[in-house]
């Protein structure tokens, strides 16, 4: 097991290396630079070029890349030009809101999706199945920002129950923290729920008609036990994969929802950095996102072995 984890972690190095080159090239090939963002629309080309020169951005690309990657290997992702702080600090600051939001959204998604997915599979072909699947289809089709705007209009503007937008850190009180995250959490969670519910249903259907389920029923087990202990446990692997993927998406930046609800998370960080061409931050965040994605996939793979002992990760 440990050997497997080590192997996976080592395989991360070439991935990150390739990502670092690709993102570096993309950013530097894309026109626009931090100087023009700092100086504003009315800056002249001479001024922009002069400021870039002074910030060391006119140096040849291989030299800039070498300087950057050497620092990265020392754990230094560089400094943000606009935030006047190290990129690692910026990521740390922006990770909190995103993590809170992602966990809440994921919780909402699982609570909504799994039971409804199981019901839909169990009552396959019934009205309940049709209704649940239609709603989930609608959920997949509705863009999250539209749902977000609708929720905002209803619960904040019309009813005044929840704040429109913004973010309060957890140190200002747990409730104060979460009341700002409920609407964005629902906007993201219900849409992820649609996907998970559909996956739960199809995965359950695959197992519900297998022989061991018939055996379980034949030996007189309660339907609930058959469903949850036998069928669901075996259907859980693909569901876990989808949950892992959706969590990856949530944590690496729910860009639109974060900017709609003004949550200073990773999504906002990357969006703002791109518009102002804060090169060090874009590069740092992309590397971080890659790391998180690969990390979540690794955790999901490890969980496979826990849920299903037939899966042997170390190949023995």
């Amino acid at each position: 097991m440990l050997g497997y984890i080590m192997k996976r972690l080592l395989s991360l190095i070439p991935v990150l290396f390739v990502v670092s080159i690709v993102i570096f090239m993309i950013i530097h090939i894309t026109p626009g630079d931090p100087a023009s963002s700092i100086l504003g629309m009315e800056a002249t080309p001479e001024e922009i070029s002069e400021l870039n020169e002074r910030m060391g951005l006119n140096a040849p690309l291989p030299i800039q890349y070498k300087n950057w990657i050497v620092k990265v290997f020392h754990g230094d992702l560089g400094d943000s030009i606009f935030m006047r702080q190290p990129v690692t600090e910026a990521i740390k600051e922006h990770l909190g809101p995103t993590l809170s939001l992602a966990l809440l959204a994921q919780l909402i998604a699982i609570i909504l999706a799994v039971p409804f997915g199981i019901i839909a599979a169990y009552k396959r072909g019934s009205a309940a199945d049709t209704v649940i699947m239609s709603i989930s289809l609608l959920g997949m089709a509705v863009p999250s920002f539209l749902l977000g705007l609708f929720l905002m209009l209803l619960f904040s503007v019309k009813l005044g129950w929840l704040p429109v937008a913004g973010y309060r850190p957890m140190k200002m009180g747990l409730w104060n923290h979460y009341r700002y995250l409920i609407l964005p959490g629902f906007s993201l969670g219900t849409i992820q729920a649609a996907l998970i519910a559909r996956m739960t249903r199809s995965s359950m259907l695959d197992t519900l008609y297998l022989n061991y389920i018939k055996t379980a029923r034949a030996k007189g087990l309660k339907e609930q036990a058959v469903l949850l202990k036998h069928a669901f446990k075996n259907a859980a692997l693909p569901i876990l994969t989808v949950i892992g993927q959706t969590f990856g998406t949530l944590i690496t930046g729910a860009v639109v929802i974060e900017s709609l609800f003004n949550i200073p998370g990773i999504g906002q960080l990357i969006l703002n950095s791109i518009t102002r061409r804060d090169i060090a931050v874009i590069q740092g965040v992309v590397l971080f996102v890659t790391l998180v994605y690969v990390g979540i996939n690794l955790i999901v793979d490890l969980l496979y072995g826990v849920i299903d002992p037939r899966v042997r990760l170390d190949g023995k």
Partner: protein
Amino acid sequence: MKRKNISKVAAALLSLTFVLAACSSGDGGSSSSNNNTADNNTSEASAPSETAENEADSKQYKNEINIAMTAQPPTLDASLSASNAANGVAGHIFEQLFTMNLDYEPMPELAESYEANEDGTVYTITLRQGVKFHNGAEMTADDVVASMNRWLSVSDRARTLLAGSVFEKIDDYTVELTVGQATSDVMILLSSRILFPAIMPADIVENAPAEGVAEYIGTGPYKLEEWKADQYIHLTRYEDYQSVDLPSSAYSGRKEAATENLYYFFVSDHATRIAGLKTGEYDVAESVPLENYDELYGQEGITLYSKPSGSLNLFFNTSEGVLADVDMRQAILAAIDCNEVMLASYANKDHYTLDPGYMNIDQPQWAVKSGSEYYNQANGEKAKELLEAAGYNGETITLLTTPDYQEMYAATIVIQEQLRQIGVNAEIASYDFPTFMETKDNRSAWDMFITSNSYNVIPPQILAVNSSWAGLDEPQVAESLAAIRSASTEAEAQEEWAKLQQFMYEFASSTTLGHYNSSMATSDKVEDMVYFDHTIYWNAKVEK
């Protein structure tokens, strides 16, 4: 059986709705009580000052103003950035030697007085004594000289319009400005509010990195408490602030710091800004998109502000490509229907004015109408004839634009259609804003572009006469600008400017498409806020 199932599902859905509603209603109760708690906490911190205020006035005021602004400023180093967001916030932290009043006249701020020598080449400026920076140090001539000389070198406007000028210290409270060339607009340039010369401590100025000063220490009524990246800027009242003893007028005169805390939240989404204003989350929504203006108009509890604040301008590539031919440019001018363009960009006739002038239409000194025969012609027949005479042969004309500025993009789409109507093969090249800016500097990549530009105080500051903006590099422009700047009377300067505007239309280097209004909205509990070129909050307060 089926019916039974449907009713079960319906019941499940219904109960889910109730659970959600119950959760949310629970939120509601605690939400408002939490709000109060937050308020109480903050007011506790400021109890002494609040009590004093309350005694003076029977009305109760909040000790914070929550402002939703559209974007995070790139920096608060006002001498470096022309960004509106930067200048707006920085204006509360930093002050200048001179600043503008409501009539755009220079007024003393950190300067006590000034004297110019006879030929207008040397200005001796006496500083106010006892003015303290936010770090407690007194402002002296060393700080002023360092700040002003840095401004002369980093601000493009200052570098071009005050080329060869230098500040020197005479004694601790006197500085001397020697200008490279005597002009009538030196004081206006010194008090200008875009890329303004902020006075900062000398050591901060001298150690400033390229991307702007590392610390924001000024002499203004507010000091920077916290800048939480991507969330907000928090300014607090500077208790040792020394205000000038003059009536308050725009940027000049008495500043009270009436409310202890100013919070500038960065809220890029329009809908969120408006919704936040309606629910009281924000007291002020800076920049209301035009599509929301009508929605907010007449709504209870909301005050709307609107005023002309700039012009939408079309610039031609006069140096390269098909449009290097003046007849081609004139053909395009003949085709343009400015009303159509402005309507598409600003949605409602109340939000714009059609006028050929490049300068502020409310500023009588410079609002001239010369060149009006070339403006808003909407004459397709004439355009086609001019095209034929110019020998146009279906070459592609590239319209450069960016969807990041909705009004610029909308105007470009309309112009493209108007050009197609007269048989011009017009294509749009659309990029994100930084790419747009970079492409604009490559003259072989475009034939025309449209930008919305805020008003400037004097003609030499406008982009339409700036050779590095769109490449207009005719000797006549430089001569006219020199004539305007050295004119002995206002009337003479106006006449020279009218001539230059006429030339720009005849040469068809650019055209104004129209003048736009900017709008913002506040809760009707906001008092004494001034909506000028930037929004001024130092005397503003919000009733509880």
